[in-house]
């Protein structure tokens, strides 16, 4: 019984350092904390995330503080660009002449004041006569008009004679001065370029502020994006969860249905849904949700199949948990990684499809604006008013880029295979 005897040495207290040997040096991180730490290291993803948050914040709050509403029209100030070439007409008064040869009085710093009073519009001589505080302003656009008809003539002849260089002639036409402005008979040149202070991004063809319309477009686009992603998430989790959990024949049938829906050209059917249902925001979200949940359902099913045999599910089952509880409390939290990546990728998809629909003319109806419909509106006047396309196009491209880059970053951060 020698080995039962305990040496009294063993009852001595340990040294302080020896006690620490079992201690975990760093605080243990949850999965999400770990992922967040890795995401933070990815500069591109962080910049994208900040960008997205900024876009969301401005979409939510800017309309409350901006001085112009998104549907307010000032027909006198239609198609005014964000940068103005202004003419000095004496006495520190300035005017801007639009592409439609309307004269508008502006401040020296670029605030629009009012449209000048029209005295006479002489269509035969291609001149317009305006009056501003006693001085007469003449806008003469006959030179450009002559050059234009010369070009049109050339274009007609070019159809039979391939040797005529139309591109060059077009370039020549472009370099002709659009109009000549004279004040009381004295010809004036544009004095300086100023930024449009009233409408920082200019106005559209109805004189609506483009800036607030782009912001309003962000509201619509983001709303569609997030709502569609949410609906897809709910349907996907239910469908994929049930399919994966029950397996066997149920799974087989449910996945066959997915295959069939997959082989249908979805965009075509989104369009068809839009034709059938009343146009509107809800319809767009509905149409997107009906067709785009399949991808999410597949991801969830795959995850459920991989996880349902694990002990924690069995433990929950033996505690008497119901299917919704197992799915909602045990399975879904464990597959948030792939789901979040899929959602981040689905949001830009939905935004893109909405823009596409609006561009085709099936999206939201006027006076509401989305980025797609703004681009569509701008298309008609593309060559004359390119800024109208520029701003919504930049907005949509930057948003798509940010979501895609964030999605890439999230995938890297959440992919458990890369965990060390």
């Amino acid at each position: 019984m020698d080995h039962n005897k305990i040496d009294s040495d063993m009852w001595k207290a340990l040294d302080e350092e020896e006690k620490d040997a079992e201690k975990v040096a760093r605080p243990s991180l949850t999965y999400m904390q770990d992922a967040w730490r890795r995401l933070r290291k990815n500069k591109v993803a962080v910049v994208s995330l900040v960008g997205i948050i900024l876009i969301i914040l401005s979409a939510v709050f800017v309309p409350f503080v901006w001085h112009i509403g998104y549907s307010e029209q000032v027909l006198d100030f239609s198609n005014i660009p964000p940068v103005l070439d202004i003419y000095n007409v004496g006495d520190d008064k300035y005017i801007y002449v639009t592409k439609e040869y309307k004269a508008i009085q502006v401040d020296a710093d670029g605030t629009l004041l009012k449209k000048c009073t029209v005295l006479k519009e002489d269509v035969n001589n291609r001149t317009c006569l305006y009056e501003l505080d006693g001085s007469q302003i003449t806008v003469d656009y006959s030179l450009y008009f002559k050059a234009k008809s010369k070009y049109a003539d050339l274009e007609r002849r070019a159809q039979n004679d391939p040797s005529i260089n139309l591109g060059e002639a077009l370039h020549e036409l472009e370099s002709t001065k659009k109009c000549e402005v004279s004040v009381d008979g004295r010809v004036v040149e544009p004095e300086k370029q100023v930024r449009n202070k009233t409408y920082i991004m200019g106005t559209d063809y109805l004189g609506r502020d483009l800036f607030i319309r782009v912001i309003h477009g962000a509201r619509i686009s983001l709303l569609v994006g997030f709502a569609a992603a949410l609906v897809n998430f709910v349907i996907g989790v239910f469908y994929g969860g049930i399919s994966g959990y029950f397996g066997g024949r149920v799974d087989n049938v449910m996945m066959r249905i997915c295959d069939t829906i997959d082989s249908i050209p979805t965009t075509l059917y989104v369009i068809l849904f839009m034709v059938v249902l009343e146009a509107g925001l809800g319809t767009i979200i509905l149409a997107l949700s009906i067709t785009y949940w399949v991808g999410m359902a597949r991801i969830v099913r795959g995850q459920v199949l991989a996880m349902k045999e694990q002990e924690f599910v069995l433990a929950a089952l033996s505690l008497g948990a119901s299917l919704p509880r197992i799915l909602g409390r045990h399975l879904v939290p464990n597959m948030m990684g792939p789901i979040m990546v899929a959602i981040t990728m689905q949001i830009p998809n939905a935004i893109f499809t909405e823009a596409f629909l609006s561009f085709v003319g099936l999206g939201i109806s006027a006076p509401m604006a989305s980025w797609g419909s703004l681009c569509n509106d701008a298309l008609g006047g593309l060559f004359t008013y390119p800024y109208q396309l520029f701003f919504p196009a930049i907005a949509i491209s930057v948003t798509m880029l940010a979501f895609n880059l964030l999605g890439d970053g999230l995938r890297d951060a959440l992919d458990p295979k890369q965990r060390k």
Partner: protein
Amino acid sequence: MGRYIFKRVVSAIVTIWFIMTLTFVLMMNIPGDPFTEDKVLSPEIKQAVYAKYGLDKPVFEQYITYMTNYMTGDFGVSFKKVGLTTKEIILSGFPYSLKIGAWASLFIIVGGVAMGVAAALRQNRLTDRGVMILSTLGATIPSFVLASVFLYVFSKQLGWVPSFGVGTWKHYIGPILCISAFNLAFLARLTRTSVLEVLQQDYIRTARAKGLSEFTVVGKHVLRNALIPVITYIGPMIATILTGSFVIEKVFGIPGIGQLFTSSILNRDYTLIMGITVFFAVFLVVLVLIVDIIYVLIDPRIKYD
């Protein structure tokens, strides 16, 4: 393999049937009918018009007529373009769309594979970075933005290409480039990943160990294996080109089917919408089926039960 192909054909037929039925159901549920917006018709005339188009029959009978008509290639008459059948309209636009689609497919496959291979062989170097940046941009800029910018820069500012219409080959440059951008970006990425994966394989090391030239290794061993996943992408690619045609043809003013489709939607020309939808869907399903069968024939490693 024969069994697999048979199963694929059957499932394609089921899909086509499903698509046609879905289209029918959707079109039956459009509020109102094609004649509601005309001036109010007297009941007798209305009856006569309904009888002429078979709208007075029970729904199931209409469905049977619709299916048999479509099977025999009779797509009905256009409601809005008087005197033209849907089939004539579709056939008038199809050549333009096909021309753009075919050239775009060629451009995407050649360009995308070239870019992807170049990026993979020069991994993490300038070529690779350049290709990856281009492909990120290509995948995020919507095609209608790209098309509008193209028009503005190359037609308006530089005057290199004509802006609208289908007169010369120059008219096609813009549409083909813009419709390709998204897929080109995607395919370049896919090829890059695939080539990088193949480069890790043992048989590539064996090929190098045998003393084969780099050209033979890449051309004969890497490419032939790396391109197999690329083939599977052709199906989705055709679908994207198809939907891309809706906006591209609109921007560039090309009288193809995409343009016809969007204008038929705005005109609420229901028979034309229905005809073009079914035409597109069937065209797509058949093309994807062909690609799938080719895939089986090409890849000997996969055994299909």
